């Protein structure tokens, strides 16, 4: 990233919008640890299914819980899902991708066929299968989503590593007698970390979407832990009389996913040398 590019944020509206949205959401998630307007799990039957008002900005649900407080607490859940799912994918995927690229031959073939194969299964279907087997719950859902991030990162890592390994400075390092592990640590990783961050950001958004879907089906985060997908599931019953219950959690998911996607696209433009050359 050149200093020049960083100094001109107004040229990169996607990056700026993405950064602002995700930073705000992260701040809200952190804030919810210390403060929410009401305790998110507090039931107040007398105040059930109230529309947005000065007391309850975003209304209350069928148990009289404050929707804003639940949304704030739910953001923690979404961030946790994103971090863990991407973390699983990154750790195992990068390791497998590096292995495939550096070893080559049959190891490479095996890893890549496995990745191809994993892509043949609809990820949500497989996640449903796994959560069905392991039982519903936030952890199982996250693990199921994380597993399907592994082939994504494995492919990406392999491809970019092979590119780096083909460059002159790596050949020079080889000629200087450095071994494979040192070349990977000193030359490959620093060169592929950018593209991994970009992909990680986009997978983060996808993981949040997938978990919301699973939670909506009742297979993800279980009550009383607040989760946006679960809120939408419950809201469907009251769609006729309390539409706000369905509108706010969905908007929260959409804004979060939009934020991370914009951030990922913006970062990609920033580090992709091909695009950078064109823009100069």
């Amino acid at each position: 990233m050149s200093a020049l590019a960083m100094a001109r944020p107004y040229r990169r509206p996607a990056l700026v919008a993405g950064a602002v949205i995700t930073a705000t959401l992260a701040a809200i998630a952190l804030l919810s640890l210390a403060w929410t307007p009401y305790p998110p799990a507090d039931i107040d039957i007398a105040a059930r299914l109230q529309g947005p008002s000065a007391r309850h900005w975003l209304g209350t649900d069928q148990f009289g819980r404050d929707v804003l407080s639940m949304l704030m607490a739910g953001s923690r859940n979404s961030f946790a899902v994103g971090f863990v799912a991407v973390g699983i994918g990154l750790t195992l995927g990068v390791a497998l991708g590096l292995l495939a690229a550096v070893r080559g031959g049959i190891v490479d073939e095996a890893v890549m066929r496995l990745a191809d194969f994993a892509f043949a299964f609809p990820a949500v279907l497989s996640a449903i299968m796994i959560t069905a087997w392991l039982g519903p719950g936030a952890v199982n859902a996250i693990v199921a989503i994380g597993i399907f991030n592994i082939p994504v990162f494995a492919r990406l890592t392999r491809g970019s590593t092979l590119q780096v390994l083909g460059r002159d400075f790596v050949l020079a390092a080889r000629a200087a007698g450095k071994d494979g592990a040192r070349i990977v640590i000193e030359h490959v990783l620093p060169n592929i970390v950018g593209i991994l961050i970009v992909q990680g950001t986009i997978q983060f958004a996808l993981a949040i979407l997938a978990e919301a879907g699973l939670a909506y089906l009742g297979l993800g985060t279980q009550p009383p832990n607040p989760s946006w997908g679960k809120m939408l599931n419950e809201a469907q019953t009251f769609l006729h009389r309390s539409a706000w219950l369905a509108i706010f959690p969905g908007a929260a998911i959409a804004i979060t996913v939009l934020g991370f996607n914009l951030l990922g696209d913006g970062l990609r433009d920033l580090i992709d040398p091909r695009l950078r050359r064109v823009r100069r």
Partner: protein
Amino acid sequence: MLSFAIRRLLGLVLTLLAAALVVFIVLEVLPGDPAAVMLGVQATPETLAALRAEYGLDRPASVRFLAWIGGLVTGDLGISYTYRVPVGGLIAERLAVTVPLALMAIALSTAIALPLGVFAAARHDRPADAAVMGFSQIGVAVPNFWFGLLLVLLFSITLGWAPSGGFPGWSTGGDAIVALVLPAISLALPQAAILARVTRSAVLDALGEDYVRTARAKGLTRAATLRHHVLRNALIPVVTITGLQFSFLLAGAIIIENVFYLPGLGRLVFQAISQRDLIVVRDVVVLLAAMVIIINFAVDMLYAVIDPRLRKRRR
């Protein structure tokens, strides 16, 4: 070409077998006794033994796998544990909802995305382009089941134009199609958003090619160049993504069929999972995976039709 197709077909069969094996392993060899899983908390030693005997679970895993594959090939998919009917019939019934739904969604998404993508590329870096890209960003970010709820809110509850869910059966004709419209739109939105982006960048790539300059040097207008020289070349990535999207579509159908209470394959597998009907789960999952694999194969074959260069030099 023919020997290539045969070799690819062999590979296809092997992939399908591997897929079946994976599903089998996940559902039967991993910790836990399938009979116990199916019976859940009501399991007693007697009912367990009875269920094991009924489904042949007392046989070794390899025998059961081969018996299952043999059944799949001959069309005998076994008996559903919860519905007590042949799984084959159950699936056929549900396919009659899911396949039309998926086709409607694909048709809708292509009908929206291709013109939008081409339009955006033709007006690259102008406001229209930015608007299409903005639509795409939002379309990708909106969860399709939420979009489905919003559609119900607007068209069913507020306007009363469409039913909010359920499926009246194909014998009702027009009503059946109406019942699938909102679900198809919900399914199509994120696909259209992605496809519009892919189309845009494929067209932009093709516009940068030398043969476009040649066409302009021949005296073709910009529009004629786009029609006669750019679009067909831009089609390959578009077809690839459309093929890939089928798998997302099937996954999306699982959720969307639940939003709209449609008796499709997705709802069947979801219910089978919650009712622990592993016989049904196993068959439906393999069927869905097979559909994805076969469609990817069809896409590969389609490449050769679009691009003459791919007809010969292939492994």
